Protein backbone atom coordinates (compact mmCIF):
# COMPACT_ATOMS: atom_id res chain seq x y z
CA UNK A 1 0.00 0.00 0.00
CA UNK A 2 1.45 3.39 -0.92
CA UNK A 3 2.50 5.46 2.05
CA UNK A 4 0.14 8.24 1.21
CA UNK A 5 -3.02 6.21 1.53
CA UNK A 6 -1.63 4.69 4.73
CA UNK A 7 -1.44 8.16 6.18
CA UNK A 8 -4.94 8.90 5.02
CA UNK A 9 -6.18 5.77 6.70
CA UNK A 10 -4.46 6.71 9.95
CA UNK A 11 -5.96 10.12 9.75
CA UNK A 12 -9.42 8.73 9.05
CA UNK A 13 -9.10 6.48 12.07
CA UNK A 14 -7.95 9.23 14.39
CA UNK A 15 -10.69 11.50 13.19
CA UNK A 16 -13.38 8.91 13.78
CA UNK A 17 -11.93 7.88 17.10
CA UNK A 18 -11.66 11.38 18.48
CA UNK A 19 -15.15 12.18 17.24
CA UNK A 20 -16.69 9.17 19.00
CA UNK A 21 -14.36 8.55 21.89
CA UNK A 22 -16.37 10.27 24.56
CA UNK A 23 -19.59 8.49 23.67
CA UNK A 24 -17.74 5.18 23.50
CA UNK A 25 -16.30 5.86 26.92
CA UNK A 26 -19.76 6.57 28.26
CA UNK A 27 -21.04 3.35 26.73
CA UNK A 28 -18.34 1.26 28.43
CA UNK A 29 -18.60 3.11 31.75
CA UNK A 30 -22.36 2.63 31.73
CA UNK A 31 -21.93 -1.12 31.40
CA UNK A 32 -19.04 -1.77 33.76
CA UNK A 33 -19.75 1.14 36.16
CA UNK A 34 -16.18 1.33 37.45
CA UNK A 35 -14.46 4.27 35.68
CA UNK A 36 -10.98 2.82 36.06
CA UNK A 37 -12.05 -0.50 34.54
CA UNK A 38 -13.80 1.41 31.77
CA UNK A 39 -10.66 3.41 31.07
CA UNK A 40 -8.56 0.22 30.77
CA UNK A 41 -11.14 -1.46 28.55
CA UNK A 42 -11.37 1.57 26.31
CA UNK A 43 -7.61 1.68 26.04
CA UNK A 44 -7.37 -1.96 25.02
CA UNK A 45 -10.34 -1.51 22.73
CA UNK A 46 -8.72 1.38 20.89
CA UNK A 47 -5.71 -0.74 20.09
CA UNK A 48 -7.94 -3.52 18.78
CA UNK A 49 -9.91 -1.00 16.73
CA UNK A 50 -6.72 0.27 15.17
CA UNK A 51 -5.55 -3.25 14.36
CA UNK A 52 -8.88 -4.15 12.81
CA UNK A 53 -9.50 -0.82 11.15
CA UNK A 54 -8.69 -2.38 7.79
CA UNK A 55 -11.92 -4.32 8.06
CA UNK A 56 -13.96 -1.23 8.81
CA UNK A 57 -15.77 0.11 5.79
CA UNK A 58 -15.44 3.88 5.67
CA UNK A 59 -18.79 5.58 5.55
CA UNK A 60 -20.54 2.96 7.65
CA UNK A 61 -21.37 3.42 11.33
CA UNK A 62 -18.03 3.67 13.14
CA UNK A 63 -19.54 4.00 16.61
CA UNK A 64 -21.60 0.82 16.21
CA UNK A 65 -18.57 -1.03 14.89
CA UNK A 66 -16.44 0.24 17.78
CA UNK A 67 -19.07 -0.69 20.37
CA UNK A 68 -19.01 -4.27 19.14
CA UNK A 69 -15.27 -4.42 19.66
CA UNK A 70 -15.57 -2.78 23.04
CA UNK A 71 -18.23 -5.19 24.18
CA UNK A 72 -15.88 -8.11 23.53
CA UNK A 73 -13.18 -6.24 25.38
CA UNK A 74 -15.52 -5.90 28.34
CA UNK A 75 -16.12 -9.63 28.42
CA UNK A 76 -12.40 -10.33 28.06
CA UNK A 77 -11.58 -7.89 30.83
CA UNK A 78 -14.08 -9.48 33.17
CA UNK A 79 -12.55 -12.90 32.53
CA UNK A 80 -9.07 -11.56 33.23
CA UNK A 81 -9.90 -9.61 36.36
CA UNK A 82 -9.90 -11.58 39.55
CA UNK A 83 -13.04 -10.10 41.06
CA UNK A 84 -15.45 -12.46 42.67
CA UNK A 85 -17.95 -13.24 39.94
CA UNK A 86 -20.72 -13.72 42.45
CA UNK A 87 -20.70 -10.03 43.27
CA UNK A 88 -21.54 -8.70 39.89
CA UNK A 89 -23.84 -9.32 36.94
CA UNK A 90 -23.41 -12.24 34.56
CA UNK A 91 -21.99 -12.03 31.04
CA UNK A 92 -25.40 -12.94 29.72
CA UNK A 93 -26.95 -10.01 31.58
CA UNK A 94 -24.27 -7.64 30.27
CA UNK A 95 -25.20 -8.73 26.78
CA UNK A 96 -28.86 -7.89 27.43
CA UNK A 97 -27.83 -4.53 28.88
CA UNK A 98 -25.63 -3.85 25.88
CA UNK A 99 -28.61 -4.53 23.62
CA UNK A 100 -30.66 -2.12 25.70
CA UNK A 101 -27.87 0.45 25.32
CA UNK A 102 -27.95 0.00 21.57
CA UNK A 103 -31.64 0.82 21.47
CA UNK A 104 -31.12 3.85 23.71
CA UNK A 105 -28.51 5.08 21.23
CA UNK A 106 -30.71 4.27 18.27
CA UNK A 107 -33.62 6.19 19.76
CA UNK A 108 -31.27 9.08 20.63
CA UNK A 109 -32.65 8.75 24.13
CA UNK A 110 -29.26 9.32 25.72
CA UNK A 111 -28.69 12.57 23.90
CA UNK A 112 -31.87 13.88 25.44
CA UNK A 113 -30.87 12.51 28.84
CA UNK A 114 -27.53 14.23 28.67
CA UNK A 115 -29.09 17.60 27.87
CA UNK A 116 -31.57 17.20 30.68
CA UNK A 117 -28.90 15.98 33.09
CA UNK A 118 -26.93 19.21 32.72
CA UNK A 119 -30.04 21.10 33.61
CA UNK A 120 -30.89 18.84 36.52
CA UNK A 121 -27.44 19.21 38.06
CA UNK A 122 -27.95 22.96 38.10
CA UNK A 123 -31.04 22.45 40.23
CA UNK A 124 -29.09 20.78 43.02
CA UNK A 125 -28.02 22.77 46.05
CA UNK A 126 -24.48 24.11 46.10
CA UNK A 127 -23.56 21.60 48.76
CA UNK A 128 -24.90 18.62 46.90
CA UNK A 129 -23.22 19.70 43.71
CA UNK A 130 -19.95 19.97 45.59
CA UNK A 131 -20.31 16.38 46.77
CA UNK A 132 -20.94 15.18 43.21
CA UNK A 133 -17.90 17.23 42.20
CA UNK A 134 -15.76 15.45 44.72
CA UNK A 135 -16.98 12.06 43.64
CA UNK A 136 -16.74 12.64 39.90
CA UNK A 137 -14.38 15.50 39.22
CA UNK A 138 -11.87 14.77 41.95
CA UNK A 139 -12.62 11.06 41.95
CA UNK A 140 -12.49 11.18 45.73
CA UNK A 141 -13.32 8.03 47.62
CA UNK A 142 -16.35 7.95 49.87
CA UNK A 143 -13.92 7.84 52.77
CA UNK A 144 -12.26 11.04 51.66
CA UNK A 145 -15.56 12.80 51.09
CA UNK A 146 -16.68 11.75 54.53
CA UNK A 147 -13.57 13.38 56.01
CA UNK A 148 -13.96 16.53 54.04
CA UNK A 149 -17.65 16.97 54.71
CA UNK A 150 -17.58 15.69 58.29
CA UNK A 151 -20.21 13.09 57.64
CA UNK A 152 -20.08 9.38 58.27
CA UNK A 153 -19.20 7.17 55.32
CA UNK A 154 -22.65 5.65 55.52
CA UNK A 155 -24.21 9.09 55.28
CA UNK A 156 -22.11 10.00 52.23
CA UNK A 157 -22.99 6.72 50.56
CA UNK A 158 -26.71 7.27 51.18
CA UNK A 159 -26.49 10.87 50.05
CA UNK A 160 -24.77 9.93 46.79
CA UNK A 161 -27.36 7.25 46.24
CA UNK A 162 -30.14 9.75 46.83
CA UNK A 163 -28.53 12.35 44.56
CA UNK A 164 -28.20 9.88 41.71
CA UNK A 165 -31.78 8.80 42.16
CA UNK A 166 -33.00 12.40 42.25
CA UNK A 167 -31.04 13.19 39.12
CA UNK A 168 -32.46 10.13 37.41
CA UNK A 169 -35.98 11.19 38.29
CA UNK A 170 -35.39 14.80 37.34
CA UNK A 171 -34.09 13.72 33.94
CA UNK A 172 -37.09 11.44 33.43
CA UNK A 173 -39.39 14.30 34.27
CA UNK A 174 -37.60 16.72 31.94
CA UNK A 175 -37.75 14.29 29.05
CA UNK A 176 -41.30 13.07 29.45
CA UNK A 177 -42.71 16.19 30.99
CA UNK A 178 -42.64 19.56 29.34
CA UNK A 179 -41.45 21.05 26.08
CA UNK A 180 -39.56 24.32 25.86
Amino acid at each position, binding site marked *: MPENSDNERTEAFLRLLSEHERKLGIYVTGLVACPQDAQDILQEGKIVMWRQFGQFELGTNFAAWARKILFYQILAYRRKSKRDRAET*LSDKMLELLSEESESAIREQRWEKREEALVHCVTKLTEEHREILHMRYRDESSIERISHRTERTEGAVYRLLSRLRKNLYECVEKEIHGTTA
Partner: protein
Amino acid sequence: MNDTERDELLELANAYVEQTLTADEARKLEAILDADEEARRCFVDFTHDHAVLHWEQVQGETAGIDDLADFRPRRLPTMWQTLAAAAVISLLALALIKPQPKETTFATMEMTAAARWESGSLPTMDGARLGAGTLKLVRGLATIQFDSGAEVILEAPAELELIDEMNCVLALGTAVAEVSEGAEGFTIQTPTANVIDHGTRFAVNVNPQTGATQTQVFDGLVEVELPATGESIELREGQRNFVAGQGLGAVSEGLEEATWAPTPAPRHRDAGWVVLTTGDPGSDDAYVWGGDPNDHISDELLLLKNSKDPAGPHRKSYLRFDLSQLGDREIQTAELSLRFVPTGWGLASHVGDSEFQVYGITDDSFDDWSSETMDWESAPANDLSNGTGLLPETATLLGSFQLPQGIQSGTFGIRGDALKQFLKADSNQRATLVVVRTTMENRGGGIVHAFASARHSGLPAPSLSVKLR
Protein backbone atom coordinates in the same frame (compact mmCIF):
# COMPACT_ATOMS: atom_id res chain seq x y z
CA MET B 1 -42.63 -1.72 37.61
CA ASN B 2 -44.29 0.03 40.51
CA ASP B 3 -42.61 2.72 42.61
CA THR B 4 -41.36 0.35 45.28
CA GLU B 5 -39.87 -1.98 42.70
CA ARG B 6 -38.24 0.92 40.94
CA ASP B 7 -36.79 2.31 44.16
CA GLU B 8 -35.33 -1.09 44.89
CA LEU B 9 -33.88 -1.32 41.40
CA LEU B 10 -32.33 2.16 41.64
CA GLU B 11 -30.88 1.30 45.05
CA LEU B 12 -29.24 -1.80 43.58
CA ALA B 13 -28.11 0.13 40.51
CA ASN B 14 -26.43 2.61 42.84
CA ALA B 15 -24.62 -0.26 44.58
CA TYR B 16 -23.55 -1.49 41.14
CA VAL B 17 -22.20 1.94 40.32
CA GLU B 18 -20.39 2.15 43.66
CA GLN B 19 -19.25 -1.48 43.30
CA THR B 20 -20.59 -2.43 46.68
CA LEU B 21 -22.98 -5.17 45.57
CA THR B 22 -22.93 -8.25 47.78
CA ALA B 23 -23.36 -11.67 46.17
CA ASP B 24 -26.97 -11.73 47.36
CA GLU B 25 -27.70 -8.30 45.97
CA ALA B 26 -26.05 -9.18 42.68
CA ARG B 27 -28.31 -12.21 42.35
CA LYS B 28 -31.33 -10.12 43.16
CA LEU B 29 -30.38 -7.44 40.63
CA GLU B 30 -29.75 -10.07 38.00
CA ALA B 31 -33.19 -11.56 38.62
CA ILE B 32 -34.96 -8.21 38.41
CA LEU B 33 -33.19 -7.28 35.19
CA ASP B 34 -33.70 -10.70 33.71
CA ALA B 35 -37.44 -10.59 34.24
CA ASP B 36 -38.24 -7.16 32.92
CA GLU B 37 -37.15 -5.17 29.88
CA GLU B 38 -38.37 -1.95 31.46
CA ALA B 39 -36.05 -2.61 34.39
CA ARG B 40 -33.13 -3.05 32.01
CA ARG B 41 -34.01 0.20 30.32
CA CYS B 42 -34.19 1.99 33.64
CA PHE B 43 -30.88 0.42 34.71
CA VAL B 44 -28.92 1.41 31.60
CA ASP B 45 -30.33 4.94 31.79
CA PHE B 46 -29.26 5.19 35.41
CA THR B 47 -25.74 3.93 34.75
CA HIS B 48 -25.57 6.12 31.65
CA ASP B 49 -26.19 9.21 33.80
CA HIS B 50 -23.38 8.02 36.06
CA ALA B 51 -21.11 7.52 33.05
CA VAL B 52 -21.89 11.00 31.73
CA LEU B 53 -21.08 12.57 35.10
CA HIS B 54 -17.80 10.72 35.07
CA TRP B 55 -16.95 11.53 31.46
CA GLU B 56 -17.65 15.19 31.94
CA GLN B 57 -14.42 15.11 33.92
CA VAL B 58 -12.19 13.20 31.59
CA GLN B 59 -13.60 14.27 28.28
CA GLY B 60 -10.87 14.50 25.74
CA GLU B 61 -8.31 12.73 27.88
CA THR B 62 -7.67 10.45 25.03
CA ALA B 63 -5.03 8.75 23.02
CA GLY B 64 -2.72 6.02 24.08
CA ILE B 65 -1.98 5.48 20.45
CA ASP B 66 0.12 8.58 20.52
CA ASP B 67 2.76 7.21 18.25
CA LEU B 68 0.35 6.98 15.34
CA ALA B 69 0.31 10.68 14.81
CA ASP B 70 0.43 13.97 16.54
CA PHE B 71 -2.45 13.12 18.79
CA ARG B 72 -2.03 14.88 22.06
CA PRO B 73 -4.04 13.95 25.11
CA ARG B 74 -5.91 16.82 26.53
CA ARG B 75 -7.95 17.57 29.58
CA LEU B 76 -10.83 19.86 29.02
CA PRO B 77 -13.05 21.90 31.23
CA THR B 78 -16.67 21.11 30.75
CA MET B 79 -19.93 21.01 32.57
CA TRP B 80 -18.65 21.54 36.08
CA GLN B 81 -17.14 24.89 35.33
CA THR B 82 -20.30 25.90 33.61
CA LEU B 83 -22.21 24.90 36.68
CA ALA B 84 -19.91 26.58 39.13
CA ALA B 85 -21.60 29.88 38.53
CA ALA B 86 -25.02 28.52 37.79
CA ALA B 87 -28.14 29.16 39.74
CA VAL B 88 -31.40 27.58 38.73
CA ILE B 89 -31.73 28.29 35.07
CA SER B 90 -33.34 26.94 31.97
CA LEU B 91 -31.50 24.63 29.67
CA LEU B 92 -31.37 27.19 26.91
CA ALA B 93 -30.16 29.86 29.23
CA LEU B 94 -27.34 27.51 30.15
CA ALA B 95 -25.67 28.48 26.94
CA LEU B 96 -25.46 32.02 28.23
CA ILE B 97 -23.92 31.31 31.58
CA LYS B 98 -20.51 32.77 32.13
CA PRO B 99 -18.55 30.13 33.95
CA GLN B 100 -15.86 31.10 36.41
CA PRO B 101 -12.79 31.70 34.33
CA LYS B 102 -9.85 29.40 34.74
CA GLU B 103 -6.38 30.54 34.00
CA THR B 104 -6.02 28.27 31.02
CA THR B 105 -9.32 29.20 29.46
CA PHE B 106 -10.28 32.58 28.08
CA ALA B 107 -13.44 32.06 26.06
CA THR B 108 -16.80 30.31 26.21
CA MET B 109 -18.75 28.38 23.59
CA GLU B 110 -21.85 30.49 23.95
CA MET B 111 -24.15 28.84 21.53
CA THR B 112 -24.07 26.44 18.69
CA ALA B 113 -26.80 26.15 16.10
CA ALA B 114 -26.98 22.94 14.13
CA ALA B 115 -23.25 22.90 14.43
CA ARG B 116 -21.40 19.94 13.09
CA TRP B 117 -17.77 19.80 14.13
CA GLU B 118 -14.81 18.06 12.73
CA SER B 119 -12.08 16.89 15.06
CA GLY B 120 -10.68 20.07 16.51
CA SER B 121 -8.84 20.26 19.78
CA LEU B 122 -11.46 22.09 21.82
CA PRO B 123 -14.77 21.10 23.40
CA THR B 124 -17.79 22.06 21.36
CA MET B 125 -20.57 21.70 23.88
CA ASP B 126 -22.63 24.80 24.61
CA GLY B 127 -21.27 26.52 27.67
CA ALA B 128 -17.88 24.82 27.48
CA ARG B 129 -14.87 26.86 28.50
CA LEU B 130 -12.25 27.21 25.82
CA GLY B 131 -8.51 27.66 25.94
CA ALA B 132 -5.98 27.75 23.15
CA GLY B 133 -6.80 25.30 20.38
CA THR B 134 -8.63 24.80 17.12
CA LEU B 135 -12.31 24.64 16.24
CA LYS B 136 -13.42 23.17 12.93
CA LEU B 137 -17.01 23.88 12.08
CA VAL B 138 -18.38 21.80 9.24
CA ARG B 139 -21.97 22.95 9.39
CA GLY B 140 -24.13 25.43 11.20
CA LEU B 141 -23.09 28.30 13.42
CA ALA B 142 -21.25 28.75 16.65
CA THR B 143 -20.82 31.76 18.88
CA ILE B 144 -17.64 32.14 20.86
CA GLN B 145 -17.55 34.73 23.61
CA PHE B 146 -14.05 35.84 24.54
CA ASP B 147 -13.49 37.00 28.11
CA SER B 148 -12.07 40.22 26.69
CA GLY B 149 -15.54 41.21 25.47
CA ALA B 150 -15.15 40.18 21.84
CA GLU B 151 -17.75 37.87 20.38
CA VAL B 152 -17.11 35.83 17.27
CA ILE B 153 -19.83 34.06 15.33
CA LEU B 154 -18.33 31.35 13.23
CA GLU B 155 -20.21 30.37 10.07
CA ALA B 156 -19.53 26.96 8.57
CA PRO B 157 -17.45 25.80 6.90
CA ALA B 158 -14.79 27.48 8.98
CA GLU B 159 -11.69 26.82 10.98
CA LEU B 160 -10.71 29.04 13.88
CA GLU B 161 -7.71 28.78 16.14
CA LEU B 162 -8.02 30.44 19.54
CA ILE B 163 -4.76 32.00 20.71
CA ASP B 164 -5.75 34.10 23.70
CA GLU B 165 -8.56 36.42 24.72
CA MET B 166 -7.46 39.08 22.23
CA ASN B 167 -6.27 36.97 19.29
CA CYS B 168 -7.54 34.26 17.03
CA VAL B 169 -6.63 32.89 13.64
CA LEU B 170 -9.24 32.33 10.96
CA ALA B 171 -7.73 29.72 8.65
CA LEU B 172 -10.77 29.54 6.40
CA GLY B 173 -14.41 30.49 6.29
CA THR B 174 -16.42 33.36 7.72
CA ALA B 175 -16.36 34.95 11.12
CA VAL B 176 -18.52 37.85 12.23
CA ALA B 177 -17.03 39.69 15.18
CA GLU B 178 -18.69 42.07 17.57
CA VAL B 179 -16.24 43.78 19.83
CA SER B 180 -17.48 45.68 22.81
CA GLU B 181 -15.74 48.42 24.73
CA GLY B 182 -12.57 47.32 26.39
CA ALA B 183 -11.71 44.76 23.76
CA GLU B 184 -10.39 47.21 21.20
CA GLY B 185 -7.35 45.72 19.56
CA PHE B 186 -8.98 42.32 19.24
CA THR B 187 -7.30 40.76 16.21
CA ILE B 188 -8.35 38.12 13.74
CA GLN B 189 -5.34 36.86 11.85
CA THR B 190 -5.79 35.24 8.49
CA PRO B 191 -3.27 33.66 6.13
CA THR B 192 -2.94 36.98 4.33
CA ALA B 193 -3.85 39.75 6.78
CA ASN B 194 -4.33 40.86 10.36
CA VAL B 195 -7.73 42.39 10.94
CA ILE B 196 -7.54 44.56 14.02
CA ASP B 197 -10.67 45.86 15.60
CA HIS B 198 -11.21 49.24 17.17
CA GLY B 199 -14.63 48.71 18.72
CA THR B 200 -17.08 47.57 16.10
CA ARG B 201 -18.94 44.89 14.27
CA PHE B 202 -17.28 43.39 11.24
CA ALA B 203 -17.01 40.25 9.18
CA VAL B 204 -13.97 38.47 7.85
CA ASN B 205 -14.04 35.84 5.14
CA VAL B 206 -11.05 33.71 4.20
CA ASN B 207 -11.03 31.90 0.89
CA PRO B 208 -10.13 28.28 1.62
CA GLN B 209 -8.14 27.88 -1.60
CA THR B 210 -6.19 31.12 -1.75
CA GLY B 211 -6.28 32.42 1.80
CA ALA B 212 -7.49 35.74 0.38
CA THR B 213 -9.13 37.86 3.04
CA GLN B 214 -12.24 39.93 2.65
CA THR B 215 -13.18 42.31 5.44
CA GLN B 216 -16.46 44.18 5.75
CA VAL B 217 -17.26 46.68 8.44
CA PHE B 218 -20.88 47.01 9.55
CA ASP B 219 -20.11 49.71 12.00
CA GLY B 220 -17.14 51.28 13.77
CA LEU B 221 -13.52 51.17 12.70
CA VAL B 222 -11.27 48.31 11.68
CA GLU B 223 -7.65 48.21 10.66
CA VAL B 224 -6.44 45.74 8.07
CA GLU B 225 -2.72 45.08 8.24
CA LEU B 226 -0.39 43.25 5.90
CA PRO B 227 1.75 41.20 8.27
CA ALA B 228 4.71 41.02 5.91
CA THR B 229 5.19 44.78 5.62
CA GLY B 230 3.24 46.19 8.52
CA GLU B 231 1.41 48.36 6.00
CA SER B 232 -2.21 48.98 7.00
CA ILE B 233 -5.43 50.66 6.01
CA GLU B 234 -8.52 51.69 7.93
CA LEU B 235 -12.03 50.59 7.12
CA ARG B 236 -15.07 52.38 8.37
CA GLU B 237 -18.75 51.60 8.50
CA GLY B 238 -20.04 50.30 5.20
CA GLN B 239 -16.59 49.83 3.72
CA ARG B 240 -14.90 46.68 2.59
CA ASN B 241 -11.50 45.53 1.50
CA PHE B 242 -9.93 42.52 -0.17
CA VAL B 243 -6.42 41.25 0.50
CA ALA B 244 -5.30 38.62 -1.96
CA GLY B 245 -1.69 38.25 -0.94
CA GLN B 246 -0.12 40.75 -3.32
CA GLY B 247 -0.77 43.71 -1.12
CA LEU B 248 -3.56 45.62 0.51
CA GLY B 249 -6.50 46.05 -1.78
CA ALA B 250 -8.29 49.33 -2.16
CA VAL B 251 -11.06 50.40 0.19
CA SER B 252 -14.44 49.96 -1.47
CA GLU B 253 -17.72 51.42 -0.44
CA GLY B 254 -20.76 49.30 0.19
CA LEU B 255 -21.23 45.88 1.65
CA GLU B 256 -20.90 42.96 -0.66
CA GLU B 257 -23.83 40.66 -0.28
CA ALA B 258 -22.84 37.84 -2.55
CA THR B 259 -19.92 36.58 -0.55
CA TRP B 260 -21.96 35.94 2.53
CA ALA B 261 -25.41 34.99 1.51
CA PRO B 262 -26.44 31.51 0.42
CA THR B 263 -28.75 33.15 -2.08
CA PRO B 264 -27.19 36.46 -3.00
CA ALA B 265 -29.50 39.38 -3.20
CA PRO B 266 -29.76 40.62 -6.75
CA ARG B 267 -28.35 44.06 -7.38
CA HIS B 268 -30.80 46.51 -8.74
CA ARG B 269 -28.60 48.98 -10.50
CA ASP B 270 -30.60 49.81 -13.56
CA ALA B 271 -32.89 52.73 -13.53
CA GLY B 272 -36.05 50.68 -13.89
CA TRP B 273 -35.87 49.33 -10.34
CA VAL B 274 -37.51 50.87 -7.30
CA VAL B 275 -36.59 49.42 -3.92
CA LEU B 276 -39.20 49.80 -1.18
CA THR B 277 -38.47 48.86 2.41
CA THR B 278 -40.59 48.49 5.50
CA GLY B 279 -38.66 51.44 6.91
CA ASP B 280 -40.20 53.83 4.35
CA PRO B 281 -42.87 56.28 5.51
CA GLY B 282 -46.28 54.62 5.53
CA SER B 283 -44.63 51.21 5.72
CA ASP B 284 -44.29 49.04 8.80
CA ASP B 285 -43.21 45.65 10.02
CA ALA B 286 -44.01 43.56 13.09
CA TYR B 287 -44.32 40.06 14.32
CA VAL B 288 -47.00 38.57 16.50
CA TRP B 289 -46.81 35.68 18.87
CA GLY B 290 -49.28 33.13 20.09
CA GLY B 291 -48.65 31.36 23.39
CA ASP B 292 -45.95 32.21 25.89
CA PRO B 293 -42.86 33.55 24.08
CA ASN B 294 -40.62 32.80 27.11
CA ASP B 295 -39.30 36.37 27.08
CA HIS B 296 -37.84 35.64 23.68
CA ILE B 297 -38.86 38.97 22.27
CA SER B 298 -36.93 41.18 19.93
CA ASP B 299 -37.21 44.77 18.90
CA GLU B 300 -34.84 44.50 15.98
CA LEU B 301 -35.83 41.15 14.54
CA LEU B 302 -39.00 39.74 13.05
CA LEU B 303 -39.44 36.24 14.42
CA LEU B 304 -40.86 33.07 12.93
CA LYS B 305 -41.71 29.85 14.67
CA ASN B 306 -44.18 27.03 14.19
CA SER B 307 -44.34 25.22 17.52
CA LYS B 308 -45.09 21.56 17.85
CA ASP B 309 -47.34 22.44 20.74
CA PRO B 310 -50.60 23.84 19.30
CA ALA B 311 -50.63 26.29 22.21
CA GLY B 312 -47.37 27.82 21.02
CA PRO B 313 -45.20 29.72 21.29
CA HIS B 314 -45.78 30.52 17.61
CA ARG B 315 -44.59 33.55 15.68
CA LYS B 316 -45.65 35.09 12.37
CA SER B 317 -44.26 38.23 10.77
CA TYR B 318 -46.12 41.01 9.00
CA LEU B 319 -44.73 43.49 6.47
CA ARG B 320 -46.44 46.50 4.97
CA PHE B 321 -45.00 48.33 1.97
CA ASP B 322 -46.15 51.72 0.84
CA LEU B 323 -46.59 51.42 -2.92
CA SER B 324 -47.24 55.09 -3.67
CA GLN B 325 -43.67 55.53 -4.96
CA LEU B 326 -44.45 53.18 -7.81
CA GLY B 327 -46.92 55.62 -9.33
CA ASP B 328 -49.04 54.38 -12.19
CA ARG B 329 -46.29 52.54 -14.00
CA GLU B 330 -46.77 48.91 -14.81
CA ILE B 331 -44.98 46.40 -12.60
CA GLN B 332 -42.76 44.08 -14.61
CA THR B 333 -41.09 42.05 -11.87
CA ALA B 334 -41.20 42.10 -8.09
CA GLU B 335 -39.07 40.51 -5.52
CA LEU B 336 -39.13 40.30 -1.72
CA SER B 337 -35.79 40.09 0.13
CA LEU B 338 -35.44 39.23 3.81
CA ARG B 339 -32.16 39.25 5.66
CA PHE B 340 -32.12 36.28 8.03
CA VAL B 341 -29.99 36.24 11.16
CA PRO B 342 -29.62 33.80 14.06
CA THR B 343 -31.71 34.54 17.14
CA GLY B 344 -29.94 32.31 19.59
CA TRP B 345 -33.27 30.92 20.72
CA GLY B 346 -34.20 27.29 20.39
CA LEU B 347 -32.36 24.40 18.90
CA ALA B 348 -31.68 24.17 15.19
CA SER B 349 -31.35 20.44 15.60
CA HIS B 350 -35.03 20.24 16.55
CA VAL B 351 -36.15 21.69 13.24
CA GLY B 352 -35.31 20.15 9.88
CA ASP B 353 -34.84 21.96 6.60
CA SER B 354 -37.37 24.72 6.93
CA GLU B 355 -39.93 25.99 4.47
CA PHE B 356 -41.30 29.49 4.73
CA GLN B 357 -44.36 30.85 2.96
CA VAL B 358 -45.20 34.39 2.02
CA TYR B 359 -48.84 35.41 1.86
CA GLY B 360 -50.47 38.54 0.60
CA ILE B 361 -53.45 40.01 2.45
CA THR B 362 -56.12 40.39 -0.23
CA ASP B 363 -58.56 42.49 1.73
CA ASP B 364 -57.19 46.02 1.42
CA SER B 365 -59.15 47.19 4.44
CA PHE B 366 -56.78 45.03 6.52
CA ASP B 367 -53.73 47.11 5.59
CA ASP B 368 -54.40 49.44 8.43
CA TRP B 369 -52.38 47.74 11.19
CA SER B 370 -49.59 49.19 13.30
CA SER B 371 -46.58 47.48 14.84
CA GLU B 372 -47.30 49.47 17.99
CA THR B 373 -50.60 47.82 18.69
CA MET B 374 -50.98 44.66 16.67
CA ASP B 375 -51.03 41.37 18.55
CA TRP B 376 -51.82 37.72 17.85
CA GLU B 377 -55.56 38.24 18.12
CA SER B 378 -55.77 41.45 16.13
CA ALA B 379 -53.32 40.50 13.37
CA PRO B 380 -55.19 40.50 10.05
CA ALA B 381 -56.11 37.15 8.51
CA ASN B 382 -54.34 35.30 11.32
CA ASP B 383 -55.47 31.73 11.89
CA LEU B 384 -55.22 31.67 15.67
CA SER B 385 -55.24 27.90 15.90
CA ASN B 386 -51.69 27.24 14.75
CA GLY B 387 -48.24 28.62 14.05
CA THR B 388 -48.41 28.74 10.28
CA GLY B 389 -51.89 29.29 8.91
CA LEU B 390 -53.69 32.32 7.54
CA LEU B 391 -57.38 32.58 6.81
CA PRO B 392 -57.80 31.66 3.14
CA GLU B 393 -60.67 34.11 2.52
CA THR B 394 -58.41 37.09 3.13
CA ALA B 395 -54.91 35.85 2.32
CA THR B 396 -53.34 34.33 -0.75
CA LEU B 397 -50.13 32.36 -1.04
CA LEU B 398 -47.49 34.22 -3.05
CA GLY B 399 -44.53 31.91 -2.82
CA SER B 400 -42.20 30.01 -0.57
CA PHE B 401 -38.50 29.57 0.11
CA GLN B 402 -36.34 27.23 2.13
CA LEU B 403 -33.55 27.46 4.68
CA PRO B 404 -31.60 24.24 5.08
CA GLN B 405 -31.24 22.97 8.62
CA GLY B 406 -28.61 24.91 10.51
CA ILE B 407 -28.56 27.80 8.08
CA GLN B 408 -29.82 30.90 9.82
CA SER B 409 -28.08 33.68 7.97
CA GLY B 410 -28.35 35.04 4.49
CA THR B 411 -30.79 36.76 2.23
CA PHE B 412 -33.88 34.84 1.27
CA GLY B 413 -37.15 35.74 -0.30
CA ILE B 414 -39.55 35.21 -3.17
CA ARG B 415 -40.14 36.58 -6.65
CA GLY B 416 -42.50 35.69 -9.41
CA ASP B 417 -45.83 36.16 -11.00
CA ALA B 418 -48.01 35.64 -7.93
CA LEU B 419 -46.26 38.48 -6.11
CA LYS B 420 -46.48 40.71 -9.19
CA GLN B 421 -50.21 40.00 -9.67
CA PHE B 422 -50.87 40.62 -5.99
CA LEU B 423 -49.18 44.03 -6.15
CA LYS B 424 -51.01 44.89 -9.36
CA ALA B 425 -54.36 44.04 -7.78
CA ASP B 426 -53.74 46.43 -4.89
CA SER B 427 -56.12 49.35 -4.77
CA ASN B 428 -55.04 51.41 -1.76
CA GLN B 429 -51.29 51.76 -2.46
CA ARG B 430 -50.42 49.66 0.50
CA ALA B 431 -49.57 45.97 0.50
CA THR B 432 -49.41 43.67 3.52
CA LEU B 433 -47.33 40.52 3.28
CA VAL B 434 -47.16 37.83 5.92
CA VAL B 435 -44.22 35.47 6.39
CA VAL B 436 -44.73 32.18 8.23
CA ARG B 437 -42.68 29.08 8.77
CA THR B 438 -44.57 26.03 7.58
CA THR B 439 -42.03 23.55 8.92
CA MET B 440 -42.90 22.46 12.41
CA GLU B 441 -40.24 21.59 14.94
CA ASN B 442 -39.88 17.85 15.41
CA ARG B 443 -39.28 18.29 19.11
CA GLY B 444 -40.12 21.02 21.60
CA GLY B 445 -37.67 23.88 22.05
CA GLY B 446 -36.99 24.20 18.34
CA ILE B 447 -35.23 27.13 16.81
CA VAL B 448 -36.79 30.54 16.33
CA HIS B 449 -35.94 31.89 12.87
CA ALA B 450 -35.71 35.61 12.29
CA PHE B 451 -34.96 38.28 9.77
CA ALA B 452 -33.95 41.89 10.30
CA SER B 453 -36.73 44.43 10.76
CA ALA B 454 -36.59 48.07 9.71
CA ARG B 455 -35.41 48.83 13.25
CA HIS B 456 -32.29 46.66 12.97
CA SER B 457 -29.17 48.76 13.51
CA GLY B 458 -26.87 46.91 11.17
CA LEU B 459 -28.79 44.93 8.62
CA PRO B 460 -31.04 45.86 5.73
CA ALA B 461 -34.77 46.08 6.35
CA PRO B 462 -37.15 43.76 4.50
CA SER B 463 -37.30 45.09 0.97
CA LEU B 464 -39.55 44.85 -2.02
CA SER B 465 -37.68 45.45 -5.26
CA VAL B 466 -39.95 46.33 -8.13
CA LYS B 467 -38.99 46.70 -11.78
CA LEU B 468 -41.23 49.10 -13.61
CA ARG B 469 -41.87 49.33 -17.29
